[in-house]
């Protein structure tokens, strides 16, 4: 039997063959039959129907109670068959949605894209990896001719599409700010009001905003409940936490943000991140903050972009590594 036909005759022959010989070959054919039925969207109850008809033809004297029990089985399988059909059509819909989301993800990439500035005085490395298709992390660079580099790193609560939509709102509010040099505390204050007015009550955004002045090498920053960054002292080979108080954006319209200034020494680095970095897991185990810092330190001699790339690769290589949240890591280093 080279070609398998999905018909009563064929099934009957297989069944007969199996009952006679208990041959494995017939079972194999039955498996093929079942696979082809699936491909042709034949529901399970239809196969049972074919089985009943075949039996009737093979055993015309079949006892009444067996006949009834098979009819009973057929009825039972009808709703199963319906569920199966529904499952099939949901699978098709799921594929459609998947492709729509990937279009949206691409659009988001374009909308939120930022150009990493190439500046002689300060070297920048940046990496952002979404846990799912769409990224709820956001980072943005603004560089002006006077030599100030603005860096925003933000994380919107939640993941996926709602988070991504929310991020686009933040990006466009920031674009609408006047183009003069803005203090981090002012920027966060304005964004807080935007988020508070526009976002659902359980949504919030954490953001770190820093301004690097490449003329005097000062770093001015404020934080709205964002994961603390780190300052790396090259001479001592040690990290210092940039721990800044400040409430997350969107909780209270009256919130104000304090601004801090730090002088950056030659060769020192500023490390900014999101909680996707500190909440990485290996199996059930959390990857501790010290571990992240040790890894950064071990690559500290590389160019900034290579450091962030290598750090991510390091964790990705760990067995059982899972990215639970979007991962963003930015490194600034004073070069001259």
């Amino acid at each position, binding site marked *: 039997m080279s070609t398998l036909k999905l018909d009563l005759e064929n099934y009957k022959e297989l069944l007969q063959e199996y009952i006679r010989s208990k041959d494995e070959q017939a079972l194999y054919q039955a498996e093929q039959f079942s696979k082809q039925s699936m491909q042709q969207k034949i529901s399970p109850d239809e196969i049972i129907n074919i089985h009943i008809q075949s039996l009737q033809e093979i055993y015309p004297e079949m006892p009444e109670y067996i006949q009834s029990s098979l009819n009973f089985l057929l009825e039972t399988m009808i709703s199963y068959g319906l569920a199966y059909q529904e499952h099939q059509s949901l699978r098709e819909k799921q594929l459609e949605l998947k492709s729509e989301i990937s279009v949206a993800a691409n659009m988001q990439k374009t909308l939120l894209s930022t150009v990493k500035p190439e500046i002689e005085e300060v070297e920048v490395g940046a990496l952002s990896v979404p846990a799912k298709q769409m990224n709820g992390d956001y980072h943005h660079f603004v560089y002006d001719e006077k030599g100030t580099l603005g860096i925003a790193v933000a*994380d919107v*609560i*939640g*993941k996926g599409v709602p988070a991504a939509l929310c991020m686009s709102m933040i990006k466009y509010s920031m674009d609408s700010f006047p183009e003069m040099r803005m203090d981090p505390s002012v920027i966060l204050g304005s964004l807080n009001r935007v988020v508070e007015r526009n976002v659902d*009550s*359980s*949504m*919030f955004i*954490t953001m770190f905003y820093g301004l690097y002045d490449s003329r005097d090498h000062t770093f001015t920053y404020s934080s*709205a*409940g*964002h*994961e*603390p960054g780190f300052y790396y002292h090259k001479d001592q080979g040690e990290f210092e936490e940039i721990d800044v*108080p*400040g*409430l*997350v954006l969107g*909780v*209270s319209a009256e919130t104000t943000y304090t601004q801090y200034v730090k002088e950056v020494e030659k060769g020192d680095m500023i490390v900014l991140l999101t*909680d996707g970095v500190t*909440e990485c897991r290996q199996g059930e185990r*959390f990857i501790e903050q010290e571990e992240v810092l040790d890894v950064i330190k071990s690559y500290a001699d590389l160019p900034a972009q290579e450091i962030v790339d290598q750090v991510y690769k390091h964790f990705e290589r760990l067995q059982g590594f899972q990215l*639970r*949240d979007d991962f963003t890591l930015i490194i600034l280093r004073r070069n001259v």
Partner: protein
Amino acid sequence: MNLTIDVSHKDNNVTYLTLAGEVDAFTAPKLKDTILPLTKEEGQTVEVDFEQVNYMDSTGLGVFISALKSTKEHGTELRLLHMQERVYRLFKITGLTEIMNIDSTVQGGM
């Protein structure tokens, strides 16, 4: 991991929620559905026991932010008790320890 939520009443005006497990994107909706209606009952205080919560992510934090906003709106109260260090850290970083009523006796390590 799962989250179990046990609701009991200390007296007429205090509802005591005992949480056990992880509060994350999967379990947060259930927690939100339990906690939000309680914060809307006039004169109520909702106490949440975190002793057996070993992990919470930002989605969980979102639930408590909504709950806090709701208490302000309805004149009710929210108290968070017995937090483990890792969970407390999340409230601390996000500045919420300043505006929420959180029991300061932090439980040791994880």
